């Protein structure tokens, strides 16, 4: 049973479908966290490790098939991946602490990417909602936008409203059961990606 939910914007319908994309993972980092005076040095302000060159060099990309590679790997191996990009068989994923600017900088046209995936390591990490919103509203990205990682049904409504169109539900949960949560609320108050108009612009409430 697949764990992927796809939301079809045109028909406003979601269904569980087969996953045709293979996600390429980074090998674990060997660099120990460096700490100085109680502060982690390698950290950004928000507290995550950066990807090392060794990790990038050791990443194994399957020779065939549709793959989603980490942004850091794509940036380093752009030329080698050009053909697959041209064949629309390559997507990119990034972590919630990576910047969209570093993704956008790689492309003249972000819509050359058939899929962008954002990895959320912890349920409580709400940066993913801002990233989705910005990709859609600021950078004009139109193709598939996927959430994966610690994705459970209770984020789906918010993810959908933030511009996500596919959701890879965490392996130990049922995507079928999660489907219903996409429609938890029928008439949201504020404008967001999926419905830009706030309620007071959609209805005459007087």
């Amino acid at each position, binding site marked *: 049973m697949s764990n992927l939910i796809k939301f079809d914007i045109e028909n406003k319908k979601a269904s569980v479908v087969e996953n045709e994309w293979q996600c390429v993972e980074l090998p674990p980092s060997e660099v120990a966290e460096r700490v100085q005076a109680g502060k982690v040095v390698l950290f950004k302000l928000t507290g995550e490790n950066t990807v090392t060159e060794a990790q990038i060099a050791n990443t194994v990309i399957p020779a065939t098939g549709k793959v989603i590679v980490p942004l850091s790997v794509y940036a380093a191996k752009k030329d080698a991946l050009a053909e697959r990009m041209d064949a629309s068989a390559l997507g990119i994923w990034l972590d919630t602490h990576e910047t969209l600017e570093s993704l956008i900088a790689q492309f003249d046209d972000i819509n050359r990417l058939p899929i962008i995936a954002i990895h959320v390591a912890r349920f409580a990490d*709400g940066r993913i909602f801002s990233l989705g919103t910005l990709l859609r509203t600021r950078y004009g990205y139109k193709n598939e936008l996927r959430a994966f990682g610690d994705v459970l049904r209770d984020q789906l409504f918010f993810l*959908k409203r933030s511009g996500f169109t596919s959701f890879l539900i965490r392996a130990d949960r049922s995507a079928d059961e999660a489907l219903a949560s996409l429609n938890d609320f029928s008439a949201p108050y504020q404008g967001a990606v999926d419905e830009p108009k706030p309620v*007071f612009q959609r209805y005459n409430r007087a």
Partner: protein
Amino acid sequence: MYKYDAIDQKIVDERVTQYRDQTRRYLAGELSEDEFRPLRLQNGLYIQRHAPMLRIAVPYGMLSSKQLRKLGDIAKKYDKDYGHFSTRQNLQLNWPKLEDTPDILAELATVEMHAIQTSGNCIRNITTDQFAGIAPDEIIDPRAMAEIMRQWSTFHPEFALLPRKFKIAVSGTKDDRAVVQAHDIGMEFYKDAAGKLAIKVWVGGGLGRTPILGSVIREHLEWQHALTYCEAIIRVYNLHGRRDNIYKARIKILVKALGIEEFKRQVEAEWAHLKDAPNTITEAELARVSTYFGVFDYAKLPAYDASFDATVASNPAFAAWVKRCTHAHKIPGYRAVTLSLKPHGKAPGDATSAQMHTVADLAEAYSFGELRVSHEQNLILADVKLSDLFAVWEKARANGLATPNIGLLTDIICCPGGDFCSLANAKSIPIAEAIQMQFDNLDYLHDIGDIELNISGCMNACGHHHVGHIGILGVDKDGSEWYQVSIGGKQGNDASIGAVIGPSFSAEEMPQVVQKLIDVYVKERTPEERFIDTVRRLGIAPFKAHVYARDPAKESATA
């Protein structure tokens, strides 16, 4: 006050359905403790020391009689017959059963209430001045904007899981009773030079572990942009606020790390894209929501009422209450009344089911069926005729709601503390009760005059101890409960953070410590000085010296 239409009602109904299913999945073991936590928190449910605690939203402190009766009924049916009004103008139930919470929320929905976003790392209940709409010094009634912001923040998808809780306060007066500077975002509404409604925006204020007053991020924002400007601020925070350390996750830490100038630059850059987006508030929407506020049929009355004046002159107890517990109203012949939830020796902010019914009845009979919760944890009847004050007083007094101590030393702001809260270092309610008993003499209290005493059971500062003229903080030393005392804090336009006077005290010492602070004040004050003025003039040294002075009698006894 605001009334739900079909859209509002549907949202709270759908929320009940969603939460009922989440609770079912949790009880069935389909959701882990960790997964259920953010879900229940966004529905106001904490797991406390003894039982769950449910925090019910009272948006910007407004309640109808019907709603308060329902709260009383719920407290009776699902709890121990009382509820606790918090410093966030919410109502907390301390003993509900987890299994009952979906039913409680369903009952709340029948009176247009909910517990949405009363806790968790999201935009919390928006708070404002308890005298909004009636204060003579008010420039703009901020409640319509508060309601528009309530709707906008409800299930805002982008800000559902922020680094930490996020509190917004709005105020429409020069004299800031909503403490906007101590909030993540504070909005002060005013009329600009062109006579148009504008907003001064503060950001990064907060109490808690690292108390900071907010910085002004924008002096002038046209009201239409309130929502998009907040979106710009919160987006920068959502993306860049720390998530690795819960104590460094509030927006104030980010603002401090970047500096207000850099933070402002990022927000303005973000806002350049968001300005005029569809979430821009329309004239029509502001007009629609405004029709719900301040539309009472006030009687045309003279500014004075002869029989009221005569009763004040002949009845000193009534006069004392009128002096402390009633407040000026912009309509002649009306007053606002504070019903004290601070009787001496009781937990501040607690109200029994019977008291809730009494207050609901009073509001219905004398104040257009509406009331307010103040962040000082009292209940307010906003629109009472002078000629009705005596009747209100008699009924309030008979029900323990007329202690004439509003603004006095025993009107203590106090968090639930170690009796209820699992984060607490120390109990706070018994300290409040002991101090109230120490000063259980009304003449003396009135002589001491205006003073604010705030108690928090831990660094999280729910009792806002930093801005108390006297602030008391529960601390943990080697596993036992101690209390750190600060003086000189203040809320309002000239807000300040209190200074700690020295090593902490045991619970038994606390009433005497407060007594000594007051003794210094009474000795040193000039005729027109309040406690805070004396502290500001003299600094903490004389207070410290007296509190820590060796007690020779005690020393020889223990020697």
